């Protein structure tokens, strides 16, 4: 029952992330500002990371295959958060160098993930990397840094405004909830707390829903 609930939670998260990717690509289509591309690319990676975890849960019995899936989950998730953070970092920069840089980073990340996956499948057991479970907590620390930067950037941006910014708090709140989800996973990785594990899943779903709500509320006349 718990296994099914986890698989469902991962697939629902992937679905929500893909809806968000669709909205973000649509927004990119209207503005064509390259620095914004990091966001849909980042959420695409996050969607794939949720699918990899669902597949890992489904194929847990196959040790080699499931270990590779777990590694893929960790890598795609960190790439996802990195792209989102890069998007915010580059949003204030000029367009052309960002475009080239993003294209190079995107191509390199896809290639490195493919090479890594093949290497994991063909590498003899005595050469395999440390357990993905152990590496998981290190990757979560990295993810917390990336998300922490985004939250810091958005809050600093709000603080620099003189005017009313009540309509602009939704993005920092959504990213803070996503940060909380990663932090809860980090705590679960240390002490195996069931509460932290459940909170991580609930917070992640809530943050993705919040992002979609932000899209749906955009374009309304503000008083």
């Amino acid at each position, binding site marked *: 029952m718990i296994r099914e609930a986890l698989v469902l939670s991962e697939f629902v998260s992937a679905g929500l992330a893909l809806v968000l990717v669709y909205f973000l690509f649509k927004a990119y289509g209207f*503005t*064509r500002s390259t620095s914004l591309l990091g966001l849909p690319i980042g959420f695409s990676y996050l969607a794939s990371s949720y699918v990899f975890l669902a597949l890992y849960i489904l194929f847990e019995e196959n040790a080699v295959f499931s270990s590779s899936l777990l590694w893929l989950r960790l890598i795609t998730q960190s790439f996802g958060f990195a792209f989102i953070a890069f998007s915010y970092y580059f949003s204030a920069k000029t367009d052309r160098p960002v475009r080239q840089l993003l294209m190079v980073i995107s191509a390199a990340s896809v290639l490195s993930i493919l090479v890594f996956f093949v290497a994991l499948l063909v590498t003899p057991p005595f050469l395999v990397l440390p357990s993905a479970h152990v590496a998981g907590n290190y990757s979560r620390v990295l993810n917390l840094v990336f998300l922490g930067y985004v939250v810091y950037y958005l809050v600093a941006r709000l603080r620099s405004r003189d005017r009313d910014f009540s309509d602009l708090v939704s993005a920092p709140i959504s990213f803070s909830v996503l940060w909380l989800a990663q932090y809860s996973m980090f705590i679960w990785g240390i002490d195996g707390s069931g509460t932290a594990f459940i909170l991580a899943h609930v917070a992640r779903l809530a943050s993705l829903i919040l992002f979609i709500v*932000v899209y749906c*509320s955009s374009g309304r006349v503000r008083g």
Partner: protein
Amino acid sequence: MTAEKRTKFQIYFDILEALSDELRNDSMLQPTKVAHRVNLPYDRFRSYLDYLMQVGMVSSKPDGGLAVTEKGVEYLKEHGRHRDFLRLMGLLS
């Protein structure tokens, strides 16, 4: 700090928005006034305007004036909505 360079799509949006605003105030608007408002040299403004007419977002009226078509109004709405989304996401000022 230098001003952010506008993308081609942002310029189309600015022209449509300016045309729409000017037409609300003056049914016989002068293209030079719009070019000035969107901060473009007249020849460049003209090439953007020609493109907008070609894709059916702006049309010329029998009296020689300009009009924003329904397609143009729809584009304005959608572009505005997506810019607002990016603003709410903290990616645009």
